[in-house]
């Protein structure tokens, strides 16, 4: 929000910053992909699929990243509006458990998915209610619902077993994986194309619809937005519901991919989303951001985690992710002008 005089004075550095800002994430992605492709990864076979950029391994990475691809677009919109939902990981777990349970108890696939989506709407509405109506700080409200949803998911799974899966009395139908694993095109499952469709829809929502414009306006300055007649409570609530629904779809994809309902399957997803959104250059305090760049951020995270998995033991992954987060924060700080600085 720099006035014209300031822009005139520091025009060069300002255009340079804008230029870097618009391309840096692609450069970042290119460097990482190039690095993993050139370095032979210590001669380790990439899941027995050969080279990093081998079609098989690319397809594998895309399959793994379906849940976060599904979710991160909606998460971006919420963060553009200046709000956050830390409960998405638990929402994924709970809907995965519910999906596996309803498939196992004989409901058809459309009905099971509908049930999970409905659950996602409910979870998103609860978050919206707590944050917007009861005005509990978003971080606290969604941290508490994180534990609430996680507790419910853990309670649904019977004691003594780790997940909702095939048992002697009630076998899991084999077609649970039709949505998330069975290959339909190019070796990719339905869930991937659904995620792609959702991303496209969100790009349109962000750029062309009232909801997207209002989200940016609310994130830029909620008071100003409300004074100019935007019903912030309503629109942010809608965003929370959208995030809930998309989290539920991500949970369905996860459960279908693994053919079981794991009550811990979504743990840590909120961090992945935050990292992707920050890498994508969305301002910390909201007001600006881009769904497309978040998706590039997702690809970076997936490349880093799966790429590293081939060279170093799994327990290094957490540190790798944390480092990517800190890098993202520094880049974000250098390149994105947040309101307080502008």
């Amino acid at each position, binding site marked *: 929000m720099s006035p014209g005089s300031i822009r005139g004075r520091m025009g060069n550095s300002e255009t340079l910053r804008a230029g870097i800002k618009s391309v840096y994430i692609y450069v970042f992605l290119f460097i990482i992909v190039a690095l993993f492709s050139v370095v032979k990864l210590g001669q380790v076979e990439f899941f027995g699929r050969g080279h990093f950029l081998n079609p098989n391994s690319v397809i594998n990475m895309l399959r793994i990243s379906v849940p976060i691809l599904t979710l991160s677009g909606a998460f971006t919109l919420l963060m553009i509006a200046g709000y956050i939902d830390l409960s998405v990981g638990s929402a994924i777990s709970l809907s995965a458990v519910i999906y596996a349970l309803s498939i196992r108890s004989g409901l058809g696939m459309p009905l099971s998915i509908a049930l999970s989506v409905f659950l996602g709407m409910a979870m998103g509405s609860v978050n919206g209610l707590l944050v917007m109506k009861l005005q509990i700080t978003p971080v606290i409200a969604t941290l508490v619902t994180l*534990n609430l949803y996680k507790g419910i998911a853990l309670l649904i799974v019977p004691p003594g077993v780790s997940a909702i899966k095939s048992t002697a009395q009630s076998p899991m139908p084999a077609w649970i994986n039709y949505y998330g694993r069975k290959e339909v095109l190019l070796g990719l499952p339905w869930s991937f194309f659904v995620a792609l469709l959702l991303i496209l829809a969100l790009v349109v929502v962000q750029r062309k619809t009232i909801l997207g414009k209002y989200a940016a306006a609310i994130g830029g300055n909620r008071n100003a937005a409300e004074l100019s007649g935007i019903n912030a409570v309503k629109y942010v609530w809608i965003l929370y519901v959208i995030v809930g629904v998309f989290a539920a779809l991500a949970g369905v994809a996860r459960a279908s991919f693994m053919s079981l309902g794991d009550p811990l399957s979504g743990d840590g997803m909120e961090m992945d989303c935050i990292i992707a959104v920050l890498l994508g250059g969305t301002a910390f305090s909201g007001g600006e951001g881009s769904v497309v760049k978040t998706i590039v951020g997702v690809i970076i995270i997936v490349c880093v985690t799966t790429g590293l998995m081939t060279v170093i033991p799994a327990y290094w992954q957490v540190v790798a992710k944390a480092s990517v987060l800190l890098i993202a924060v520094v880049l974000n700080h250098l390149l994105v002008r947040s309101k307080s600085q502008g």
Partner: protein
Amino acid sequence: MSMESNNKRPSTFLGRMSNDSFISLFMVGVLIVIFALACLIVPNFYKAKNIVNILTNNWYIIILGIGVSFLLITGNFDMSVGGVIALSGVLSVYFVQGVNVSPNELANGLGMPYVVAILLALACATCIGGINAFFIAKLKVPSIIITLGTMMLARGIAQIITRGAQRNTSLPDEFGILGNTFVPGTSVKISVLIMVVLVLLAFAYEKKTVSGRRIYLIGANPEAARLSGVKVGRQLASLFIVSSFLAAVTGVLLASEYIAGLSNRGTGYEFDALVVALLGGVSIAGGFGSVLGMFVGAIILSVVTSAATGLLLSPHWQFILKALVTFLAILAQRYALDRRRR
């Protein structure tokens, strides 16, 4: 706090006390009610042994709660404390383990003298607080994002040192003394004594020192605090470092108590610390709360969880109970304060 309410308030004992003390007293009332209910429902709940347990078995959460409460009063979160516990515990074990004593890599450490190892582990784990302080006080990044990241970083380093498991062999005898010694003549551990001393120190700091009062000023209005000459950044930085130091102390005590360095020790403690602060009336919006309130909150949480255990509920109920209790506490406190201000 609020001047206009000072004028209207009747000059009774209840009317003259500050809002902080009012909420602390309010939560003491809630504690008594909950305790009475638990005594009615749960068999043997009123026994002296159980009461001592309730007062003492949460000591680690209370120590964490001190730092987390102060930060919450200033409007910041510290979600890294759980990770710091794991890191300091694992480091203290790794530093004292003998050099080249076994072919098993997890049994070999650096062979330092006990006291040096403990001090060094505390110093290293406190560095996490330094990272928090740099990003939050200097770069003005939202605390929730950075501390979630440093939580991953700290726990990730602990996982690397323990290869994702734990270190518990080739430890000198004195390693277990600190955490397993009882105060003479009682069943109270030294750790509990440390907790009590720390709470009293924190209470004195909060009420009697200039620096302690500044915390409230920063929480109520950081901009006004800055303009009136408070070094907000420096104050926040030192609070983050203190919070990490307290978590590091807790980690060393826990490692000594279990005579093992576990990489997943302290998982979820950051949420518990936040919950006890919120239960005790610490508010994120506007420099409000007290360490004594947090202590009361910790006892409430302890009563609730041990009542749930007494009723033989599944441990997974803890997540849901904590969530519900927190929401109820936030709403009840807000209602009580609103009534009082009228």
